[in-house]
């Protein structure tokens, strides 16, 4: 059964459809949340809120692009949390876990615990989000382009350059 059919089933009151929707979209939802917040606990909260919101707003689903609709909900939830946290701790626009300035010191940070951490510290927020959405979220460049508001060709280019950056850091290490 296609994802849009599952959403329409949920719209018709079939609650069990949500479990299957979750199985098929959790990678993308997690990736959107993590891409914005760069924090696993916060991403988990966003995932929960996203699936609750899907239920609450299912009447608004018109049968169109299902993954795009779900990712847009996830992104809004993540941005809500991000804005709240930003107000609380005064972070910059580069994410909860990272400021743009951090990039300068990353080459010396050879103690990065894993490749995700290296990527997070090496890349700008947009670069990291694109890499995360593509590799972990499983989204195509075309789908990512709508979420980050850039042309698909730009997304592809940013992605390639981002991987080169990570590779350079890893090779140097």
């Amino acid at each position, binding site marked *: 059964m296609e994802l849009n059919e599952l959403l329409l089933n*949920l719209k*018709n*009151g079939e*609650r*069990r459809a*949500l*479990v299957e929707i*979750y199985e098929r979209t*959790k*990678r993308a939802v*997690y*990736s959107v949340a*993590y891409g914005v917040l760069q924090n*696993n606990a916060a*991403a*988990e909260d966003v*995932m*929960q809120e996203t*699936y*609750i919101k899907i*239920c*609450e707003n*299912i*009447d608004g689903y018109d049968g169109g692009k299902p993954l795009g609709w779900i990712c847009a909900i996830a992104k809004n939830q993540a941005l809500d949390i991000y804005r709240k946290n930003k107000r609380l701790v005064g972070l910059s626009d580069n994410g909860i876990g990272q400021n743009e300035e951090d990039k300068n010191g990353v080459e010396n940070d050879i103690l990065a615990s*894993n*490749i*995700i951490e290296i*990527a997070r510290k090496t890349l700008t927020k947009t670069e990291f989000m694109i*890499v*995360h959405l593509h*590799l*972990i979220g499983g989204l195509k460049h075309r789908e990512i382009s709508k979420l980050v508001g850039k042309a698909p060709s730009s997304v592809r280019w940013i992605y390639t350059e981002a*991987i*080169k950056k*990570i*590779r350079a850091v*890893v*090779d140097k290490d």
Partner: protein
Amino acid sequence: MKSKDIENLIKDEGLKNIPDIDIERIASTAVLPAKPRRVRKKGFAVAMAVIIAVVCVSTLSGVLFGTVSSEITISVNPALALAVTPMNTVKSVEMLNSDAEELFDEKEIEGKTVEAASEYIVNKLYEAGYITEDSEITVTAKGNNKKQNNAICEKIHGKANRYKHSRSHGGGNGN
């Protein structure tokens, strides 16, 4: 290390980090929007069945235009009576209950041919939800001019059935 290896590392590491949320609990407790109600069921779900009783009373002197030759009573829940001339024109209409007064406009019926009037009446019944796919439509006729009465009954019955059919296929107004 090749780019492909970097990509695989990120993917493997990232997939391990995806948290598992209690989706079963969310599925069973989340608030789903209430389903929209179907059109105008009123209190008579059973009587979604539409019963149209047509009573035609022909007069012997019904040759002249303007003279009433048949009296047709249509009763669903809205009930109305039509006085019909031998030329098949509706001379007058009487609303027999408040539902009919609310639903029909006399000006849209009087002076029209029986065909046009019945088209209007059935259309209104359809729009108001009195004709549905599971409606039972009964048309009966009484009167001296059996040929005219049967023709009128068949027209009304035929139109109502077309509307029923179009509703069951999610179509328009049966035209």
